[in-house]
């Protein structure tokens, strides 16, 4: 496989890991804002305990995606950052606000009004950022961002203001909320009443994902025609079947309170959705003008990057695994 295709696969893998880790962070923030009922404060505490040790490490994956993009595919990076300047700035602001309000909440006065003020900002940013992330991915898939003679010709609002991109944004919010709720059912094992709360939330989010997915699918026919056409490929039915198995499996295991299985199902579902999108988009980075091959940089840079990633993975992956192991293992 040519080097640029390997790097494209690494980008997709990093995006998947970002969704599974950072996505759950966003979802946790959403549930923080939506905390309700007699145990609302305890829900917030549980979410904070779940997120606090790992949230900074999780968002490194997005940085990895962006760095590989501008190192290996600079022309695509230039086009994406110009065409999606507005939503990218919004994502930046959302991420900054999320991180800072999360920390300020911990270090400000601990009385309820102040806590609520920061929590509202934190929750709002947690809703907003995944939506805009979905907008950007939808815009890349839509085929509306056009490059003529190496320059962007479709302006600054193409792609991400259309219904298809909005559907992608809502879908991303739903996926992250579902993911976070299933993770939280496992994290609150020692508090059964909280676990029940998050089980209900996960069920609601999971069920709502079905119409969200259907809406995205229907809008893709006109909103992302090249991607939609790919769904007649030989691998598409297998992928859809596998995703459905994970989705239905996650819901059923949630219902029957087998929470670790539910978590695995949710992870599988999100992974397969993103991989499906990646396969449908391949080999384009920006449909239809920019591909992995025609935006790749010189071979020496690609080789050096590949080498650096291999070395980095040896250092990073065990450390990342250890981090999760320490903070997420069953406390005895």
């Amino acid at each position, binding site marked *: 496989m040519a080097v640029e295709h390997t790097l494209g696969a690494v980008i997709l893998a990093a995006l998947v890991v970002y969704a599974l880790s950072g996505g759950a962070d966003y979802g946790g923030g959403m549930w923080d804002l939506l905390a309700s009922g007699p145990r609302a404060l305890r829900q917030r505490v549980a979410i904070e305990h779940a997120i606090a040790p790992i949230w900074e490490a999780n968002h490194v994956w997005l940085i990895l995606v962006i760095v590989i993009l501008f190192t290996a595919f600079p022309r695509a990076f230039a086009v994406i*950052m*110009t065409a999606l*300047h507005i939503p990218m*700035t919004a994502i930046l*602001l959302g991420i*900054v*606000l999320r991180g*800072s309000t999360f920390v*300020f909440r911990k*270090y*400000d*006065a601990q009385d309820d009004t102040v806590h609520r003020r920061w929590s509202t900002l934190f929750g709002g940013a947690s809703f907003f950022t995944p939506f805009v992330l979905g907008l950007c991915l939808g815009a890349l898939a839509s085929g509306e961002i056009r490059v003529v003679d190496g320059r*962007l010709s479709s302006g*600054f609002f193409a792609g991400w203001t259309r219904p298809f991109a909005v559907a992608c944004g809502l879908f991303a919010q739903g996926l992250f909320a579902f993911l976070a709720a299933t993770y939280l059912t496992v994290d609150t094992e020692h508090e059964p009443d909280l676990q029940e709360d998050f089980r209900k939330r996960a069920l609601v989010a999971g069920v709502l994902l079905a119409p969200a997915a259907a809406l995205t699918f229907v809008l893709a026919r006109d909103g992302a025609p090249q991607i939609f056409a790919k769904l007649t490929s030989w691998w598409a039915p297998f992928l859809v079947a596998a995703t459905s198995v994970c989705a239905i499996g996650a819901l059923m295991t949630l219902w029957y309170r087998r929470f670790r299985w539910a978590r695995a199902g949710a992870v599988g579902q999100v992974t397969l959705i993103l991989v499906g999108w990646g396969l449908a988009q391949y080999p384009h980075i920006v449909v239809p003008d920019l591909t992995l091959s025609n935006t790749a940089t010189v071979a020496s840079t690609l080789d050096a990057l590949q080498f650096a990633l291999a070395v980095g993975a040896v250092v990073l992956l065990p450390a990342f695994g250890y981090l999760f192991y320490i903070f997420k293992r069953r406390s005895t």
Partner: protein
Amino acid sequence: MTTRYAFQIPWGLSVLAQGDAKASVRGLDSIPRDEWPDTRIVHWAFDLMVAAGFAMLILAAWAGWLWWRRRRLPDDRWLLRALVVAGPLGLIAIEAGWVVTEVGRQPWIIYGVMRTADAVTPMPGLVVPFVTFTTVYLFLSVILVYLLRRQFIETHPTSTRTR
């Protein structure tokens, strides 16, 4: 612009720039006028950076000398006052140094290859993100100072506030 009261060190610039006392250093006057950065900003920023650096060095030397003479941690009131005033000097020196680098490289963004004007995004209305990000930074700084002060006041040994 000429530097008045310049203190000239023979061969100094050649040694500093090329490591060889006989090397010739290309002057700004040999570069076309439209490729000059704003020399006033670069010059003053550089002076500020060096002055801040030397001020800190002198303070360190003074503190060291006091420790050597009195065999205890320096508690000279003037030194302590100077240390407080000199607190921001490190940040000032770093920022001034960045100004020297970034303004001094203009009008190039990649020296000799690409001009800044050619590299900037075609997106119009850049004042909006500029103001937005500046506001965000200001907001974060204010909150940070507020929270740090609160933390300090609450943990100060003579504080009578209970929490």
